[in-house]
Structure formats: C-alpha cells, structure tokens
C-alpha cells in the first residue's frame, strides 16, 4: 500500500478517536445553527412589528400600505458564516497543530522515518487526511444548515439556492483547510511546539479578528449608530460622489481589510449567498465577477499555504534536534 495512503488512513483513525475534536466540531455546528434560529426569530419580530404598523395605519384611515419585509432565506446565514470565520479557523488550527504535535510529543517520528518514506509522502498523507476531515465536517454542517434554512424559510430551496450553498461550502472548505495546513506547517517548522502554537494563535487573532476590526472601525459609515450618511440624510448617489473625494483614506482602510484572508472569504461568501444587498437576487456570475479578486486571493493563499506545509513537513526538519 502506498505510504501516503497508510498515513492518511492512520490519521483518519486518530481523528475518529479524538472526542475533544468531535466536541469542537459539534460546538461549531451548534453556534452556526443558533445563529440561523436567532436571525429567523429576528425576522419574525420584524414581520410582527410590520403587521402592527399596518393595522395602526388602517385604524387611522390610511390606505397606503408600506412594502412588507422580505425574507431571503440565504441571508439568514450571515452569522453562521461569521462563526465559521472565527471559531472554524480556531478549531482548524487545533486540528492542524495536533497532526504534528502528537507525533513530536509521543516521539513516534523517529520510528515512522525508519521506513522508506518518500520526501513529501508524510506531509501529503497528513494534508489529505485534513482535507478529508474538513470535507466531511463541511458537508455535515452545510447539509444541516440547508435543511434548517428550508424548514425555517417555509419554502423549498430552489436549484440556484443549492448551487449558491454548494459554492459557499466549497469556499468554507478551502478556508478551513488553509488554517489547518498553516498550523501544521508551523508545528513542523519550529523546534519547540509551544512556539508554533503561539505563532498560530497570534496569527489567528491578528488575521481573523484585529485586521478586519480595524478596517471596520475606520469605515466612516460605521461611526454613528444607523450609519453616518443616513444620519446626515445623504442619498446613496451623493454618498458615492462625496466618498470619491476621500479615496486615499478608503484605499488605506480597504488595504488593511484585504490584508486579512478572512475578509476575502467573507466578501466571496456574502456575495454568493446574496447577504450583501448589492448581490442579492443577482445571477451567480454577477457575484463571481464582483468578487473575483477576493476569490483569487483566497485560492492563491490556499495553494501557497498548502505548498508551505508540504515543503516544510519533511523528515530532515522534523527530526532535527
């Protein structure tokens, strides 16, 4: 049997036996589900408020009926995507770090490398196992999410919605595997395991939370509750014209945001799911062309990190003292 496949099978067995990992994945799934339920409840509250408003208008003798709030089921996934961004990335680090950490802690590396294993077979087996694990996890999460959204949305999802969900699941798989491969590469790169864990957690904190938060904070429209331009009663058209005069500041702000791979994942998935109003109910091709730079950044980042993990996780580096 091929060495890569042997390592792949052994890793899957270890993952299956790891109860804590199962607990973390269950926790992620629960957070994702809670978020959908809360969004659905929030929509019901809006409908209730709307009905109350309309009946008050009728009682006052008005014949004008304002447009009711519309439910776009895929928009309920906003919080869920954000949980995958934050918690998913953290748990991916744990999975990737664990792939190398357990070998170093149990001193099994010396034994493994007494066998005639090819230069990159060890790394390939581990990455394949990570890829398969995340494939199953993402498949489970999105299968449950699809069922819940269909039930809550009170109407069957159309083929186009399923297609959008499939693309989002694919992007989520790329994003989560990227973090696992990065943590695995760092655990192989450093002599001391502790340092790699430190580096992974600091990277997670900076890339997932701090950089997007700085970009978000610098957004002028986020400075006033309800939006700056709303509070100044400026139309969308004038807003764009005014902001064109502040392109330099926005370039810096956007530059900070896009230095985070998380933001690329978020912008792509929000476009495909129609969470951003600009892309809602528009063809998939529109979301594709509108977020192509984000998609490319995510894919290039993914292949770069996978390459890093494969090139670093070698016998020479793992066995050095």
């Amino acid at each position, binding site marked *: 049997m091929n060495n890569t496949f042997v390592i792949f099978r052994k890793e899957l067995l270890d993952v299956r036996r790891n109860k*804590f990992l199962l607990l*973390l994945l269950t*926790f992620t799934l629960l*957070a994702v589900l*809670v*978020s959908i339920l*809360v*969004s659905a*409840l*929030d929509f*019901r*509250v*809006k409908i*209730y*408020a709307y009905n109350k408003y309309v009946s008050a208008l009728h009682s006052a003798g008005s014949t004008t009926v304002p447009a009711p709030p519309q439910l776009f089921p895929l928009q309920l996934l*906003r*919080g869920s995507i*954000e*949980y995958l*961004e*934050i*918690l998913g990335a*953290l748990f991916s680090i*744990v999975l990737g*770090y664990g792939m190398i*950490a357990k070998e170093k*802690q149990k001193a099994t590396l010396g034994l493994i490398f007494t066998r005639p294993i090819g230069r990159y077979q060890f790394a390939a087996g581990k990455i394949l196992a990570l890829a398969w694990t995340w494939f199953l996890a993402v498949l489970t999460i999105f299968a449950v999410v699809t069922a819940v959204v269909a039930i809550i949305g009170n109407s069957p999802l159309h083929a186009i919605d399923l297609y959008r969900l499939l693309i989002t699941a694919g992007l989520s798989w790329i994003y989560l595997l990227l973090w696992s491969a990065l943590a695995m590469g760092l655990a192989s790169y450093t002599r001391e395991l*502790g*340092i790699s*864990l*430190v*580096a992974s*957690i*600091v990277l997670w*904190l*900076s890339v997932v*939370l*701090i950089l*997007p*938060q*700085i970009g*978000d*904070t*610098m957004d*002028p429209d*986020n*400075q*006033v*509750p309800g939006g*700056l331009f709303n*509070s*100044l*009663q*400026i139309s969308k058209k*004038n807003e764009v014209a*005014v*902001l064109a*005069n*502040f392109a330099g*500041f926005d370039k810096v702000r956007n530059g900070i945001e896009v230095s985070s791979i998380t933001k690329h994942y978020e912008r792509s998935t929000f476009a495909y799911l129609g969470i951003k109003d600009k892309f809602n109910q528009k063809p998939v091709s529109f979301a594709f062309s509108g977020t192509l730079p984000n998609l490319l950044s995510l894919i290039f980042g993914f292949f770069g990190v996978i390459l890093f993990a494969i090139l670093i996780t070698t016998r020479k580096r793992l066995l050095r003292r």
Partner: protein
Amino acid sequence: MSIVLIAARQEIKSLRREKLAQALLIVFVGMVSLSSFIGWLTKKNVTAIWQKVKYQGLTTAPNPFANVPDLYYLRNTVIYLVLIGALLAIVLGVASILRDRKAHTADLILTRPIDSRSYLLGKLMGIGLWLTTILGFVTLISWMSIALIIGKALAFGDSLHLVAFFAMSLIFLLGFVLLGMICALYSSRETNALLLPISLWSIITFVLPQLGTADHPVSLLNPVPAIANQGGAFSILNSVFSPLSTTEQFKKASSSILGNPDFIGSPTVGITVLALALMVGTFVLLTSKRDRLRRTLDE
C-alpha cells in the same frame, strides 16, 4: 514571608518566561497604543466628510463628532481589551496552573504544610500584580496619546475616568485569568486546557449577546454595546443571558465611564456583574481539591 506572597513572587518571575503571554502582551500594548491614533484619524476623516457635505449644501445636520468627549479616542481600546486582553488573561491563568502540573512542582510544594488555597491565591495575586503593572503602563500611554491629539493635558475629571476605566479593566481581566486557571485545573490534556477557556470566551463574547440582541458575531466587535432587541422572545432571552456576558457588561460600563454619547446608562450593573464573576471564580478556584494540582496530564 507568607505563602501567598512567596507564591505571588514566584508567579511574577515565571511569567517572564511565558512565550505566548509575551507575544499577546506585545500585540495588546501595540494595539492599545495605536487605538487612539486610529480614533483620531477616523474622527478627522468624518469631520472632513461632514465639512464637504455641508459645503455642498447636502445636509443641515450638525457634525456628529462636534461634541465628543476627549476620552472618545479610547473606544477602540475597549475592544482590544475584550479581544486581546481577555485572551492574554486566559493564557496567563492556564500557563500558571499547567506549569506546575507539567513539572510536578505541586507534588513537591504540597509535601510541605502549605494550604493549597494560599498557594492558589498567591498565584492569582502574582498575575494580578503583573496585570496591574501592564494596565498602569497602558493608562500612561493612553493619557499621553490623548494629550498629544487634543494638544493639551487631559482634564483632571477625565484623567480620573481614565484611571477608573483601567481599574475596571483589571477586574474584567482577572475574571478571565480565573477562567483559565479553573479550566487548567480540571482539564486532563494541555491542548484542552487552553481551548476550553477560549471556547467559553467565544460563547461569552459572541453567542450569549447574539441570543438577546440578534446582532451578528462580527458586529459585536463594535465598541458600542449591542442594543437588546425588544420584540418576541428577545426581551426574555436578553434578561437571562445579558448578565452572563461579561464582555458586553464590560463594554456597557466602559461606554458609561468614558462618556460615549451613543450610550445612556450607569456603569453600576456592569461593574457589579464583573465583580460577581470575579468572586464566583475565586470561590471555585479556592474550593478546588488540592489533588487537582497534582494530577498528571495525559499528554
């Protein structure tokens, strides 16, 4: 010297060798130092936008930043305390207990006639003193940054509010130190000991506030506290879960102390919740059996 002081002194010495704590500390101090600058840059940009809009006759509304208090520039610091500060506190707490369990030093120390409660209290005190020094330093940086931005010394009243804010931050952070220590005492594996409190932190920071406000997780990283959704079951959910989210309570109390114009309310509830969390955590830690300190890790 009492065992509490000896343990505290030893803890401070050991903290100098904690790499993750040091890395997080550098990120924390760096971000807090940058936070006033980011606030200043954003305010300057918004004011310029408002001037442009006003000049073009598109609005008659006043500048939303015309009367913001000088302590406005600290609003991002609140978020860095919730994000980086809380994680730093967790790491300090976890490292403090795991260090003993991994090196089996507790086995040796507890052969002496030492009360394990005094020993654990000493560790907590050591971390508390270390955090006090860091927060003292951060207070000084913040004071100087704001003074530089406004071009004059911060008023005495504002300076007092600044000190009160960082004093409350210490109570907030000690709650997370305790969470880390307790998880490290009760976990059988090193990885679990670190991940369990981080998972609990994510529940406290994102899940609990979302249940009462319907806000999305990323919106909860806004320095302005989330507003409770008043419809449906949200009012009940918010009254049940809001007191449990120490991060949201900290944000509310901070907004009140720093005079955030977008928030109306007193800091009393927030400070009471933080103090209660600290007391409950201390109680759980000190009532843990001494054998917990001596249990060998599974990895």
